[in-house]
């Protein structure tokens, strides 16, 4: 079975709440995003701002079988891509923060724009923890935050992907931010 079939199938399973499908899909999506990121950086250079949705969409179209382009699948794909991004950032932030504690810091001059400061790394880690906590109370809000903040999706795109009204997305987003900020600040 080709990758496209596999992804389509996994997306469908994922839509049915199959956790292992998500797990399986994760590396495939990550690889595709990485490949595209490399291509874009080569083409556009470090300073260029990327069109997030266009990029995820491109990855989606590359990965799935054309016949299976159902909107549910696309939603799931965007959700997965957002999760992948969250994971990548968290992973990187953890490394940075560990460096600071002397776990492995050597002389490293990061000369790329992805250099996240240690403070910022710690913010990312705190946000991730709070978001995990939020998902236990209100998974839709957590999903919306994931898509908007890590997936880089607009309100409209998020609304479309989740098949809800943009105004609903706005309301959830608004309260989620308040809740997360309270959670992080009170820590």
């Amino acid at each position, binding site marked *: 079975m080709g990758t496209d079939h596999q992804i389509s199938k996994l997306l469908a399973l994922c839509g049915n709440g199959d956790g292992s499908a998500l797990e399986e899909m994760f590396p495939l999506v990550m690889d595709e995003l990485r490949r595209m990121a490399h291509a874009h950086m080569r083409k556009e250079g470090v300073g260029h701002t990327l069109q997030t949705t266009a990029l995820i969409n491109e990855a989606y179209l590359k990965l799935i079988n054309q016949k299976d382009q159902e909107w549910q699948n696309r939603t799931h794909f965007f959700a997965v891509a957002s999760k992948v991004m969250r994971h990548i950032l968290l992973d990187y932030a953890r490394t940075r923060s560990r*460096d600071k504690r*002397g776990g492995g*810091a050597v002389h490293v001059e*990061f*000369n*790329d724009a992805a250099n996240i400061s240690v403070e910022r790394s710690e913010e990312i880690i705190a946000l991730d923890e709070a978001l995990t906590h939020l998902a236990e*109370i209100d998974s839709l809000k957590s999903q919306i935050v994931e898509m908007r903040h*890590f997936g880089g999706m607009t309100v409209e795109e998020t609304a479309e992907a989740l098949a809800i009204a943009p105004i609903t997305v706005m*309301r959830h987003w608004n309260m989620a931010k308040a809740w997360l900020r309270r959670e992080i600040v009170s820590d």
Partner: protein
Amino acid sequence: MDITRWQQIEDLYHDALDRPLIERSQFLSDACSGDPELFREVESLLSSLDPDDSFMATPEFDVGLRILAKPDPVLQSGQDFGHYKICDFLGRGGMGEVYLAEDTKLGRHVALKVLPADVASDQERIHRFIQEARAASALNHPNILTIHEIGEADGWRFIASEFVEGQTLRERIKDGEPFELHEAIDLALQITAALNAAHKVHIVHRDIKPENIMLREDGLVKVLDFGLAKLIESPDSQTLTANFASTSPGMVMGTIAYMSPEQTRGKNTEARSDIWSLGVVLHEMLIGRLPFGGDTSSDMIAAILTTEPALPENETWMPDSLRRIIIKALRKNPDERYQAVNEMAEELRGVFSDADTAPSGSFREPTDLKFISRTDPAFVPTGEAIRHSKPEEIRAGWSGYKIGVAFVSILTLVLVGGFAGSAILKNTLWATREPMKITRVFDTGKTTTAAISPDGKYVAHALTDGGQESLWIKHIATNSNVQLVMPEKSSFSTITFSKDGNYIYYVKGEPTSPLYQVPVLGGDSKKILDNVNSHISFSPDGTEFAFIRWLSDDESVLMVADTTGTAERPLISRRHPEVFSNYGVSWSPNGKIIAGSVYTGSNRMNIALIPVDGGETRLLSTQKWLEIEQVAWLPDGSGLLGAALDDVGENLTQIWFFPISGENARLITNDLNQYQGISLTDNADRLLTIGWQKRQNIWRLPKGKSEEAQILSNNIYAEYRYISISTDGRIVFPSNENANGTRDIWIMNVDGTGAKQLTSNAGGNILPCVTSDGRYVLFASNRPDRKTYHIWRMNIDGTNPVQLTNGINGEKGPRCPPDPKTVFYVSSGPNVAVDKGRLWKTSIDGGEAVQLTDYATGGPDISPDGKFIAMRFRFDDSTPLKLGIVPVTGGKPVKVFDVNLNQSLFLRWRPDGQAITFVKTENGVSNFWEQPVNGDPAKPVTKFTAELVLGFDWSRDGDLICARGYEARDPVLISNFK
């Protein structure tokens, strides 16, 4: 949380939000009457709304993509890489990727830097880098990061270095916490110590900046990347812009900010440039910003070149003396700066005495100071507030510092006294196993041999100076150093302490190899015994000693004598090719076995274990060794320690542990020094060895005059023997042996720059000679089978190699006459040295070979008029080699001079053809001599009092170009090696 409750909160939250701000509170209290918890919940959410909406305002997707876009690390965790196992990817920088790896041979962690492919493929840069890195690392300075290995694995060039846990000074600065005054000075002083050690041997760092300074958790500073800056420099020091075009802006700025004016102009970097950079770092630590800022790199360069640093004046917290130090370090004109980094260090130390707060002795242990002040807030000098305080507070801060220092001293005592507070406890937990410590006892480079006393308190050492050697004893704790034996012409071959530590025994390099004894506290030397041809080793009860005596060239005997030199008796004899080495023996702690290094035939060595009661000798292990030097038993008898060179081809002699079980030996040291000799304290907590390396420079002697001698190179760490000067004044030379046992021919400018490799992947290539028309390089090569050397020729740029000779016994030493149609060379007989060879010639295009002499002939050089050949020769192998002149047509010498050339490898006609230049080496010092062709007596033309001449040639301009150098040898103490 209950879903309905959550819904309730959400509804209320939005309802409240929909109302004007002033009505919200009332609305909420009304809506939540009787449910204060609900009120608190919604109220806290509302108040958590970000007023300026900056929370999560920018999606992280872009950043994520950039992280994804980074190239994957070359190596993966868990992967084997040479004899390393990759543990973790640590990061990526301009100089490649850095990994945490485990050295599987030594079972320790190292930082592995894998060089980027473009840098690694540039042979010249690699060549220069290796020279510098090796040299700096060989200093073994505690403030210089130790490089263990520079190698290649799986096609990647890598540098394995000490793995330091801690943070870089850059990270420390970014932390934002202001530096305490004493902390900044402590750091600066440690950096000066590193630079001082390097500058002494003419190594310049070139890139001192906070990223290159590592702060270990215990406060020790490590300066990284000596020589690395050379790697990123463009090969021909082009302009900065060209140089930095390929790097990202942030990085350029970071690099430029610390550059001296002369560096920004692309001029030669020297020690005083490092002083400037250190001044910038000190400024940044104390003032909190760079002295020369700018939004763009050109602004920054302009500031470096034209503006003066704006230092706060009349600020109490900034002592005037410190202000002056920074200003002096940052003088645009290098002549106005500190001329040596230790001058700067001296004044930095003085900052404290100026303020009458000198912690004197304790300040020399800055780690204690810092450690305590950082871990116990009660003792933090209040000077920490220096940067942001009002003047009156600042004054308090400075005097607070005094109090801090006083407390620190007391606290140090308390801690030493055993009241281990939580601070110390934390420290010991962190350092569960002390890392091995290597300390140079001296760094004069003039120690020939040394030994540590059994109690570890003294180091006895022989000092060579001006061709004479003297014996000294140094008390380690007090640094007092006393001469025991006056300087004499003859050398000290070995030094050994008696078991009770009362006497020093030494063997002199005189014809009879006499062993003497001298009391440790001084007194007359007493001769004990003649014909002691090795180190001696005492029996456990100290009443007897064992040594090697050579009866003839073919027979060596293990002897035992009592301490007065009487009652000597042979234990066992070994004959060629399995003779004892003259490195000496070691008597086992139980008194039953004497161990010593022996030859085992086919140029390999091993350790022989000889039972004292006459049992059978056995070899320690089956491992093969190219060299095993003096060995010493560990007191528990578990094995021996000694300097050795294994059979694998790592070409540096290191200290090894040889288990008595016969298992494979284990490396103790693994750095870029060579080690020689060993002595242990009684409890084996420390060992003393000699660490050595070769240092050399290229010199020009205009018209051969030594009084006008100029140094051309900036300390070069290769071996420039057999150099040849090209018609355009460049030096052609063979490299040291490469890792795979081959040697290559290189060409470079006389100042050591512009090195280019002319041969590669073609076996050994040696003895280059540029033809008189400058077109070709003649050389000897053992390509393709690496067995026999033949004469080859290649174009001056290394292209088109052509083999000229192909005799069964091989050919070496090609020379070219003024008319470049002929090649003269020496063809050695089977299995014999060049000195038993004969003189031959052939055409520059090869072909028929013509024999010119039928007696031992070597080192030929053709006269400027092309008519004669000067050479060393002898008719009878038992007589010394003499200097002779033979016509280019061959035959017997037409002139013979009474000059003994046994020690002199090189001959060259003086450009005027009136004399022959040769090198004479006496007592470790080489001088040039001339033998006039008219038969007048030979006379010295230089008056050098130190260093050896390694190679020389006359340039086409009539200047004598030579490589001079010496072996720098220093006693090295190693602790925690077990």
